[in-house]
């Protein structure tokens, strides 16, 4: 069986099934507007968490400014989709938001990522605050602190395509030459440089790509939640995203996805207990971190491929199809 056919069968079929089931539930009215909001939030959080995991979990660079990229994407999408009708409006807005966020990420990353250590955390913290304050004061474009209403909304089809597309693109990046360079930087920066990895380039590249998808996630947020204001993208929002990443496991994409789903569900189910909701939420986080300090998934990945062993270890970094020898060795490992 050619690899592409196998990939379509093992990964494509479960994904298509998921898409159709949710579509059916929406059609049957079981997923109503309330649950659709949760679903949209899950999709947004998956894109945000996976992109931050690329920066922090895989490249090892601690970033505290993901909400800043999110804000850029959200405002770009809101402004452009309000001006241009139809899918061209929000798709154009998403693209513009992603590119702008990537540009800002590149400009912040280039000077700070040359250094070793946690300079990036401070720089991104400042950057996100600056972005927020700029949006507050740019009255004529952003309507300042009062916020912007978004007139066009995406439906489930777009959310599905954008979320799955983002995860696949980031996964492909991580299992390529460029992604392995980034992982080498996380593992040991000095060793990586000694074997010819341009560590600054690897870090800036990961950070810029992470910023792009952070902007995309922000745009998705704007296009579902009708209304955005600068306060939504404060420091606490960056921490929210970081919580998802750490809870899921630094260095595990599937961990981020599972944690994004879990936290959104918990948050929705706790709506009934308004007074003690945040206490319960925080308590749950504490309990999970006590019993799973490495996060729900650690650095393991859960494959959609139903035929392979669940929870395969990260070695899958190597592309199994590309190396006949490697895939045989992996096959043997799976039998054990």
């Amino acid at each position, binding site marked *: 069986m050619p690899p592409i056919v196998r990939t379509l069968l093992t990964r494509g079929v479960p994904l298509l099934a998921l898409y159709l089931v949710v579509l059916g539930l929406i059609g049957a009215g079981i997923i109503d507007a309330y649950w659709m909001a949760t679903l949209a939030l899950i999709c947004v959080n998956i894109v945000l968490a996976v992109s931050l995991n690329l920066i922090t979990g895989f490249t090892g660079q601690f970033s505290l400014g993901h909400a800043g990229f999110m804000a850029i994407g959200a405002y770009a999408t809101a402004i452009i989709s309000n001006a241009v009708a139809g899918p061209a409006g929000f798709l154009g807005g998403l693209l513009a938001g992603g590119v702008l966020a990537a540009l800002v990420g590149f400009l912040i990353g280039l000077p700070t990522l040359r250094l070793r250590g946690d300079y990036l955390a401070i720089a991104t913290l400042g950057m996100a605050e600056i972005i927020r304050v700029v949006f507050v004061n740019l009255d004529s474009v952003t309507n300042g602190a009062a916020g912007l209403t978004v007139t066009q909304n995406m439906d489930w089809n777009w959310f599905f395509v954008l979320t799955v597309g983002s995860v696949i693109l980031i996964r492909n990046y991580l299992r390529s030459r460029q992604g392995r360079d980034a992982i080498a930087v996380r593992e040991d920066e000095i060793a990586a440089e000694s*074997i010819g990895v341009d560590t600054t380039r690897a870090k800036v590249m990961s950070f810029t790509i992470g910023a792009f998808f952070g902007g995309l996630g922000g745009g998705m947020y704007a296009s579902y939640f009708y209304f955005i204001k600068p306060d939504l993208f404060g420091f606490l929002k960056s921490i929210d995203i970081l919580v998802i990443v750490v809870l899921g496991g630094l260095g595990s994409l599937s961990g981020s996805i599972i944690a994004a789903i879990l936290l959104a569900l918990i948050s929705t189910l706790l709506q009934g207990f308004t007074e003690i909701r945040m206490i319960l939420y925080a308590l749950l986080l504490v309990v999970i971190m006590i019993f799973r300090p490495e996060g729900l998934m650690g650095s393991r990945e859960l494959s959609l491929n139903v035929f392979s062993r669940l929870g395969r270890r990260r070695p899958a970094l190597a592309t199994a199809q590309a190396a006949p020898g490697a895939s045989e060795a992996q096959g043997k490992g799976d039998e054990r």
Partner: protein
Amino acid sequence: MSDILAVEGLTRNFGGLAAVSNVNLRLGTGELVGLIGPNGAGKTTVFNLLTGVYPPSAGTITFTRQDRGPVSIGGRRPYAICRAGVGRTFQNIRLFKDLTVLDNVVIALQQNRRYPLLSSFLRLPPFAKAEAEIHAESLELLRIMGLDAKAEELARNLPYGDQRHLEIARALATKPTLLLLDEPAAGMNPNETAQLTRLIARLRDEFALTILLIEHDMSLVMKICERIYVLDHGVVIASGTPAEVRANPKVIEAYLGEEA
């Protein structure tokens, strides 16, 4: 025989301490040279200067590849020096511990095999072709080092001796012409050291390498090194063949202290 490495007046100060001062080294193409000296003599500092971990305070380092001509590598970034053709291992093993044995070699080897970012994202044909070649070549290198059966194990789970071998394999994957080995036999038993001695000699011939090694194990140094430099307090105090160095009173003094 032309020189592959010429070091002149190499000096590195840390604050008021001259860790390395006015060191001159010459390595001919294909030579196997030892760098020895008591603890704290500045051997690893010399390696770190040669590979760009620190810039030199003074002095020049000229590296020559027959196909590219001489280049000055003093003060350049480590990855650039590696790409010029200088590979190294570390005294305290620095593997990518949470990655597989194969990926450790793959990351080094892929530096010579580029393909564009777009084909990574979309898994285009250049990606598939290059990846297949990179993995096949990495496995072949692991086979030469006797690690192919452990390709899918995590590097941290390898026995100590295998970790040292993997570090050498990873350095070889960068296709160096000059290989710097920092205490390759540290922590090995005499049996393993003897095996390593044979391996180093074999690798030099198979990969057409010039090797400079730091070593405390005299059985290894005296057996395979053609020439030896002796460093003490950051200064080269002697150089020559193993026999000459062994008979040099300055060397005996540095190692054993002055005669009473």
